[in-house]
């Protein structure tokens, strides 16, 4: 049986999840030139927010009712933490050299992990996440899991909403203006502080949707899930051209597909059998990233911008 279609779907699904998280990196970077390394942990707290809602609901609630509430819970928690982080950790450092907020972000990332570990009940090891009941769907030779249906629907929908918001609304245009030149935007009457908060909040909301998708896909969440996934999403954002929201999604998908195909096929190339296992997938993903950056330093969809003096 030809496994390529299935592997492509595996990669697309993984990539869509990377993409959802990558949007947060890319938006924040686009507007304040900050790599928010705590974003992976904001994703993680979103997952725990969704789990908390599930635990509050009476037993036996169907997922049709529970899932929307869980998404709301995830978004509320993630947005609250992201906005709080912006207000108390990043805003005081906005005029400081760029390294300072970057280091704060790394510190915040560790702090959030430890906080969930310490205060969330039984979070010291993995917690199981509720599942959508029902068997997988077969489309031709491709099997799609019930839990992944959420991801299939959520990723394009999120992109459409985001695209509409940025291109068509007043606030969205304000974001574009601030991204281009914050000082001029301010002179033109754009409330840049508000725009920055919105960028953090939007990124966190998409990460929260990604976190629910993660829980449904893998059936478990834990306090360390954000770190590696955050790193991958950051990579996806760079790959797609950091600062470009469509680039984040494209970068995520390219990264996910590359990892999956590397696992599936590199071992079949003569002489490469040692480098084809899943444990090498990350290596190949980064080889791809480096190649893209060598030949297209601005990333796949990034625009070539002159460095500011």
């Amino acid at each position, binding site marked *: 049986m030809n496994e390529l279609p299935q592997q492509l779907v*595996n990669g697309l699904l993984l990539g869509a999840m990377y993409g959802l998280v990558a949007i947060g990196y890319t938006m924040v970077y686009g507007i304040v030139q900050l790599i928010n390394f705590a974003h992976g942990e904001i994703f993680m707290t979103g997952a725990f927010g969704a789990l908390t809602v599930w635990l509050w609901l009476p037993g036996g609630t169907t997922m049709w009712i529970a899932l929307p509430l869980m998404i709301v819970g995830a978004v509320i928690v993630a947005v609250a933490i992201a906005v709080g982080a912006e207000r108390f950790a990043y805003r005081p450092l906005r005029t400081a050299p760029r390294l300072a907020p970057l280091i704060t972000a790394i510190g915040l990332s560790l702090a959030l992990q430890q906080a969930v570990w310490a205060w969330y009940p039984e979070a010291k090891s993995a917690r199981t996440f509720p599942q959508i009941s029902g068997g997988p769907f077969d489309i031709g030779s491709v099997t799609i899991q019930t839990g992944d249906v959420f991801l299939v629907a959520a990723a394009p929908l999120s992109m459409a909403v985001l695209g509409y918001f940025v291109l068509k609304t007043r606030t969205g245009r304000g974001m574009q203006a601030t991204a281009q030149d914050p000082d001029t935007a301010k002179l033109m009457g754009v409330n840049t502080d508000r725009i920055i908060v919105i960028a953090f909040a939007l990124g966190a909301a998409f990460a929260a949707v990604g976190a629910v998708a993660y829980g449904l896909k893998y059936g478990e969440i834990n306090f360390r899930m954000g770190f590696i996934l955050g790193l991958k999403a950051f990579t996806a954002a760079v790959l797609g051209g950091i600062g470009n929201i469509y680039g984040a999604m494209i970068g995520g998908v390219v990264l996910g597909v590359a990892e999956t195909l590397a696992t*599936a096929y590199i071992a079949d190339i003569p002489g490469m059998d040692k480098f084809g296992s899943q444990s090498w*997938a990350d290596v190949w993903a980064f080889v791809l990233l480096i190649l893209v950056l060598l030949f297209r330093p601005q990333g796949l969809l990034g625009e070539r911008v002159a460095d500011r003096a």
Partner: protein
Amino acid sequence: MRQRSLIALTAALAAGALTLTACGSRDSGDEGSGKDGGGTVVIGVDVPLTGDLSAMGLGIKNSADLAAKNANKRNFVKGVTFTTEALDDQAQPSAGQQNASRFVSEKEVLGVVGPLNSSVAESMQKVLDDAGLVQVSPANTGPSLSQGPNWQTKKERQYKAYFRTATTDAIQGPFAAQYVFNTAKKKKVFVIDDKKTYGSGLASTFTQEFKKLGGQVVGTEHINPDTKDFSAVATKVKNSGAEVVYYGGEYPQAGPLSKQIKASGAKIPLVGGDGVKDDTYMKLAGAESTGDLTTSVGAPVEDLPSAEQFVSDYKAAGYKEGYSAYGGYAYDSAWAIIEAVKKVVEANGGELPSDARKKVTEAMQSVSFDGVTGKVSFDQYGDATNKQLTVYAVKNGAWVPVKSGTYTG
């Protein structure tokens, strides 16, 4: 240029952060270690208290603690009070080594129970051995730890201070292979491991025996234990036509792996080793895991008459976490240290000698008693003489023993 150098810098910082998390939190309970050892013996415990493997680690910590309490209650060694001090290694070799140095620096520590992971043991052995501080692991199954890197051809003891109450993968892997081939009648296997000392060792001893019996290995994979997405591997397993998957590794990956393999449409059992045998496995693998198999060291604790007391004591002590796969072995490991201390104290006229560590290590070699898991004693390599193993299967969301025995090559 500024943008790009920022990205490079970020990558470097990320790597730094990775290292930081690896040696993160540690208990800060070393107050009072300065006071003179007036008859107090501390048994150090090094296990993962946090992270994915904490269920097993906490079971070990509690069981060792129970052994110390029982020894005090029975006044087993006159004039000596036992306490335990548990440090978290987060299943990381670097943290294990730091903990080992810390135990060495605290002179009241006369023995260490742990660690859980063979890869952590590798980093601890030399530190403890140099200080002559005895270490008894309830869970390490990597053969090279005691018998040297060339254990298949030339066995050679590595460290005089290293002992274990669990049997080795030189026995566990082949035992699983015989069960899968002869009893379960599966001829085609897909072998997966996590590249760690324990997982890859177990996978290779399994593979050797399985091939020797006439079985066919239709595919191999190595997974990265940091990720949770095994869909690509699952699809490969499905297309390989394998009748069974053997996984060398631990339950945090084995659970999701089993789940994703079944989800891909391959309704075949996953077989693992003792690192998989924890109740968390079923939570992670879901309802489809019924029929998955694992081997584990020893006979099931619940079925041993010698363990009845342990099980009821453990319940009575009111520990929040279960004793998990290694509780009985951890109790026996701690008890072996207590027995060795007793010998040393009795030989020294009822007092701890000044070179207690060295004497305890020497005494350990000849320790022999009836423990929770049966007769406890050590061979010339420091390995347990008890070579019993059991196959368990998932039934109704629990591990049910299906066959006990000893491997005969």
